[in-house]
């Protein structure tokens, strides 16, 4: 959430790192990057997307543009991508229960309007599995995770009660991200 960035499949933590006195120059920003404190300045240049980056007395002309979470940076003749990571999203994915089955239960009594997948099918997160109707409203039952349809017990037209198992899903392992060096500079409080 604003501090984690991924470059070449490695996550780095970047955060402000004042010297404690606020003595840095007007355009200079102190950053901690992977636990190393660095004073940098990034000044917009004359051209669109152009910046002058100064680090440790070196000055580089860079071009940078951002598309959502993706940063495209042209530095010393080549372009690389840095992605901003939503730490909460990543933590939720990392901590989400993996493996095993999950039964998708009816949120309320109703009738099956349509079945969109077959048993054994591999489904992506968010893929439509069933459409149900209850109280004159149709609800889409979608896959909560990437998995395989283990069981669909109802056919179109079938009635069900609240909490009836509509679909049983088996999780399929997805690759996890690699984490980079953690901060070495700061002790925890």
């Amino acid at each position, binding site marked *: 959430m604003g501090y984690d960035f991924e*470059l070449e499949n490695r996550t780095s933590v*970047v955060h402000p790192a004042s010297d404690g006195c606020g003595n840095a120059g007007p355009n200079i920003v102190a950053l901690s990057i992977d636990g190393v404190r660095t004073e940098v300045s990034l000044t917009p240049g004359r051209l669109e997307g152009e910046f002058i980056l100064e680090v440790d007395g070196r000055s580089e002309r860079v071009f940078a543009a951002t598309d959502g979470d993706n940063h495209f940076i*042209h530095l010393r003749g080549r372009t690389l991508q840095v992605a901003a990571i939503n730490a909460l999203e990543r933590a939720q994915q990392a901590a989400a229960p993996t493996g095993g089955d999950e039964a998708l239960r009816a949120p309320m009594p109703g009738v099956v309007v349509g079945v969109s997948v077959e048993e054994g099918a591999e489904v992506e997160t968010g893929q439509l599995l069933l459409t149900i109707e209850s109280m004159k409203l149709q609800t889409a039952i979608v896959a909560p995770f990437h998995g395989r349809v283990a069981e669909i017990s109802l056919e179109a037209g079938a009635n069900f009660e609240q909490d009836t198992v509509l679909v049983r899903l088996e999780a399929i392992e997805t690759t996890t991200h690699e984490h980079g060096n953690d901060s070495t500079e700061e002790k925890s409080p």
Partner: protein
Amino acid sequence: MTSIPGIKKVLIANRGEIVIRVAGTLKRLDIASATVVHALDADSPAARAVDEVCVIEGNTPVSAYLDATQIIEAAKEIGADAIHPGYGFLAENADFAEAVTQAGIGWIGPPAAAMRLMGDKIESRRFAAEQAIPLTPSANEEDDPQTFQQRSLDIGLPLLIKASAGGGGKGMQIVREPANLAPAIGLARSEAERYFADGRIFAERYVDEPRHVEVQILADGHGNVLHLGERDCSIQRRFQKLIEESPAPCMDAELRDRICTQAVELARAANYQNAGTVEFVLAQDGDFYFLEMNTRLQVEHPVTEMVTGIDLVEQQIRIAAGEALAFSQDDISFEGASIECRICAEEPDHDFRPAVGQLLLVRPASGPGVRFDGGIAAGQTVSTAFDPMLAKIIVHGRDRDEAIARAREALRESVILGCATNAAYLERILAHPDFAAGRVETGFIPAHMAELATSPADSIERLELLAVAALTNQDFLERRDAVPEPYASMGSWHN
């Protein structure tokens, strides 16, 4: 520039950089320009580069640009005197050329008959053989489908299986083991059907470490056939050209003369008119074999323009208007060296898989001897619907070394943000000692795979990139600015 009688408005039946390229010449010749656009390209730089735009539709964007009827209708509607087909799409479709002519519209390209003869790989090879042009041994499936596999094996391995109607490397398979022949045929056929709607294929001897050398031809309707020198297009990936240059490196005058002469003779014998390219495979021992003829303007035509100073599109238009070439072979001089690099939306480290995205910033390289032919602009979406080529950088230098240096500099200076490109990869090819020494062959990229791979960012680069990302990241800045004083200035102090 004197105007060309009969041609006041030209419809460019294409998209992307070539539209802009052709439109540039049209403007210089005081000819009105128009192009066809699919909705996806409605706001493209190509659409903005012409005087008039005709919207075409299709189930897929590509199918719109392949819809001959719609395009001819559009040309009629706007009163175009001629159609320039560019390259790709309908450029080598003789039926289209014929339909254009029958509709009373001028065709800026060779006559349909010459296209039929030279544009068909099998027909053109038969014809070349009759003219005593050297050919690699080959077998044609059509001659006897039952014995095609055996006849192919009789040529001797390695073999190349190709689409008869193909081009641009699509529908090609190499076979080094007899067991792989049958699957390769299947693959080649299905690709041929997919790309060219024509499943005919043939097999030919595959030359190891071959070079791809081609000769630019100009022929008018008055019996003049000239060559504008050769181009080496050996640097390829997936059978598609990435870097082209003229003159070809490490080629002596005698060999150059022989190849160019053969090309001119072939074109003359075929009654060829307009611009065309005769492609050869050049073996390391100096033997060369006729490969095919491209009956259109090539993507890499600018390198020839750079060394000869001749505008090929202008010559195409003049020939189409019935003018005779205003110069003879002896008038053509070759100055210095030129290199073209194709910047593509792709990831070289991941088997050149196409990259997609929305272009955020485009800053073409410029400077002496640098030409940037691109049809891209910020805001444009790069999708897999079209060819991944985004732009071409063409440089000219007094000699090959200077051209390489300028091309490298231009690649480093070109900024295309929003989608992965092969620009840095191209720069590494140019920097490779084998390339500098002229040791090029079509297998250059697979042979140097490891040396050409992207090196990871070093610690300094990493730090710089992360700093730039953080300081241009809205979320980061908001979070930083949310910290009140004196806390922000105290840093991570803890009592």
